[in-house]
């Protein structure tokens, strides 16, 4: 976990001061709507369907228990007692008053948090593999690099008014859990043939109306060149990205329009003229950043000896299998807390639950919590001897549902319930699908199937890259849903194929259920993954199931 330096804290404090002034100028009429809009957006503040929505940054998904308590306090004091975790590892509050936002930002600053660049046409929160630093197979822990880039991108003088939003994600592992190939820039730590560590750089990925898998722009970038190369990409984009049509303004459109090789040529031209002395907004170096990361060890181990009843043992074993995984540290496991209970909107957490989880993190995981790309939480390091106690505590709080990676673990946008862009609801669809597969034995038998739901073509629910994707469309004021199959979000990122015409609100949940059950009955064995079955028998077989 990164600890702020004095400079980091001053920056955040001053940003609060600045935004308070901007809000005051807007409310007094000194700033027009048009002028205030980019200023509020680059501080995470949207005007939503019901009220302003504030998106708070959780840089690369890492939270301390103190920060989670801070978020709980904001949820209770200023919102309706809950927050919503997003696919980019952030948290959103949906029911705020504009006048109160400066106070909220001040509270956030007290726990080293902010909402800087969580929205707007600027470099957004840096996201990362949620298993960074604990995955035994990773080349190098990407979090210090995320932090270096976060500091560089924060208030970067040149890149606050880009053609469109700009998202950067990191992974240090060959298994991509951060959807890096669906980002404007995806950075993967790799080793070259000489054994040196550097970055494989991908550019121009994204979802939205025009889903594009990122292209490899640089096979190996020395680590010391990271910020200069990012600056070069951003400058070429800032100068050449389209500004006449916001749907064609992302870097993916620019890369497609001029071609990858000419784009790479332009970037190299800028890059060659940059050196560490000319970089803007680079105020630190990687070793300083590394030194500010708090080591998680040692923390107290509780050595519980609780006995479980036979019934409990079965549920516990399932949780152990689905919701925990090994780490590179002997005797320590990571434990997921699923936020995909049918009783809650995917990714939602109440203030009481936040405090409870903060307490568990203090007791069992060195006061650390992580947010995942899939809108769940993770206690990164829990000693094996604590797992029973942890599970019991989670179980009592209804937070032990063992469905990570299953058909219930749905990624879902807020949809029409909150979002002013949405065409359809999405949360109720997720909940109905979750209820169709409520039987834990069946859920367990089905294995890993990722369902992703977006309530409009902006694709915040990542429907393009779900094994089963659902896109809400408006047809003459009615909610209809398009289904895609075969997408994937991992290192082999792939855009799903449209199954056929959209189905209506009454049919969508049954259609998904039919697809899943058809897979279940047609897979060769329990080990055959949904995508393998789909490849083997073809999408037409699934068409017949849904459309007859």
């Amino acid at each position, binding site marked *: 976990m990164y600890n702020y330096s004095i*400079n980091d804290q001053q*920056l955040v404090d001053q940003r609060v*001061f600045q935004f308070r002034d901007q809000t005051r100028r807007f409310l007094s009429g000194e700033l027009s709507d048009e002028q205030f809009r980019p200023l509020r957006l680059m501080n995470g503040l949207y005007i939503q369907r019901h009220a302003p929505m504030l998106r708070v940054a959780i840089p690369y998904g890492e939270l301390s228990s103190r920060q989670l308590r801070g978020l709980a306090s904001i949820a209770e004091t200023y919102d309706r007692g809950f927050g919503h975790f997003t696919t980019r590892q952030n948290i959103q509050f949906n029911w705020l008053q504009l006048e109160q936002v400066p106070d909220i930002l001040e509270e956030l600053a007290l726990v080293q948090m902010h909402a800087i660049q969580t929205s707007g046409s600027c470099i957004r929160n840096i996201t990362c593999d949620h298993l960074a630093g604990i995955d035994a197979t990773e080349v190098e822990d990407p979090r210090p690099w995320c932090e270096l880039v976060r500091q560089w991108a924060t208030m970067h*003088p*040149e890149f*606050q*008014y880009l053609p469109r939003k700009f998202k950067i994600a990191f992974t240090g592992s060959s298994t991509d859990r951060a959807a890096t190939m669906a980002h404007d820039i995806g950075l993967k730590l790799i080793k070259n043939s000489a054994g040196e560590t550097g970055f494989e750089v991908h550019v121009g990925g994204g979802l939205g109306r025009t889903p594009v898998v990122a292209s490899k722009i640089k096979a190996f970038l020395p680590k010391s060149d990271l910020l200069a190369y990012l600056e070069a990409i951003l*400058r070429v984009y800032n100068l050449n990205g389209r*500004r006449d049509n916001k749907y064609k303004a992302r870097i993916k459109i620019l890369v497609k329009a001029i071609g990858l090789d000419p784009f790479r040529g332009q970037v190299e031209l800028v890059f060659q003229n940059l050196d560490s002395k000319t970089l803007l907004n680079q105020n630190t170096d990687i070793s300083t950043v590394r030194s500010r990361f708090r080591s998680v060890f040692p923390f107290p181990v509780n050595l519980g000896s609780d006995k479980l009843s036979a019934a409990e043992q079965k549920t516990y074993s399932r949780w152990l299998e689905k919701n925990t995984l090994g780490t590179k540290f002997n005797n320590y496991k990571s434990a997921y807390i699923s936020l995909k209970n049918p009783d809650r909107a995917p990714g939602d957490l109440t203030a009481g639950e936040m405090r409870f989880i903060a307490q568990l993190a203090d007791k069992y995981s060195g006061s650390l919590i992580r947010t995942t790309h899939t809108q769940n939480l993770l206690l990164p390091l829990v000693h094996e001897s604590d797992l029973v106690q942890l599970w019991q505590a989670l179980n009592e709080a209804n937070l032990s549902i063992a469905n990570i990676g299953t058909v219930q673990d749905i990624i879902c946008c807020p949809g029409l319930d909150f979002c002013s862009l949405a065409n359809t609801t999405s949360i109720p669809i997720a909940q109905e699908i979750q209820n169709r597969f409520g039987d834990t034995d069946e859920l367990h038998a089905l294995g890993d199937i990722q369902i992703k739901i977006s309530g409009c073509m902006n694709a915040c629910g990542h429907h393009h890259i779900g094994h089963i994707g659902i896109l809400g469309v408006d047809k003459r004021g009615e909610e209809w849903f398009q289904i895609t199959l075969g997408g994937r979000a991992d290192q082999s990122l792939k855009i799903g194929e449209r199954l056929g015409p959209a189905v209506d609100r009454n049919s969508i949940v049954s259609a998904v259920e039919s697809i899943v059950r058809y897979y279940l009955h047609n897979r060769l064995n329990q080990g055959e993954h949904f995508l393998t079955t789909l490849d083997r028998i073809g999408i037409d077989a699934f068409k017949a199931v849904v459309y007859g």
Partner: protein
Amino acid sequence: MDNLNFSENTIAVNEWYQLDKEFENDENQARVLVVAADSALEFLEGPLDRLERIVITSTDFNDGRFFSIGRQIRLRGYSGRLTVVGNVLSDQYTALRFCGFDDALILDNSANSRVVSLDKAFALPGVEDSVARNPEHQTVMRNSQ
């Protein structure tokens, strides 16, 4: 700064392209180049050092190309004055400064047009506007110049 008089002795970017090498030795030639923020950047190839001032005109504060144009001009080694004219927000002054601009001529609807010198460095883009009203608020340099 007191005076930002470049209404005379200016050269438009299309004329700049047409100038030949003799320009470099012509003492009577214009010394101020005016470039729109959406211009192509070929003008950077010309003899920038002969110019006393380069003026970037902005019609939309939200079109951030002028920041990168400023950076490119400075990275080319240009050491004369660099000015932005038109629609920019006070919240952008410090970012402009960091991107190499010396001053801004603000033309806003309230007939409150004014020249702003950007030679004070502030901690954050935009903070200076707040600071001007709250001089007791201490700011800290985040970025060394």
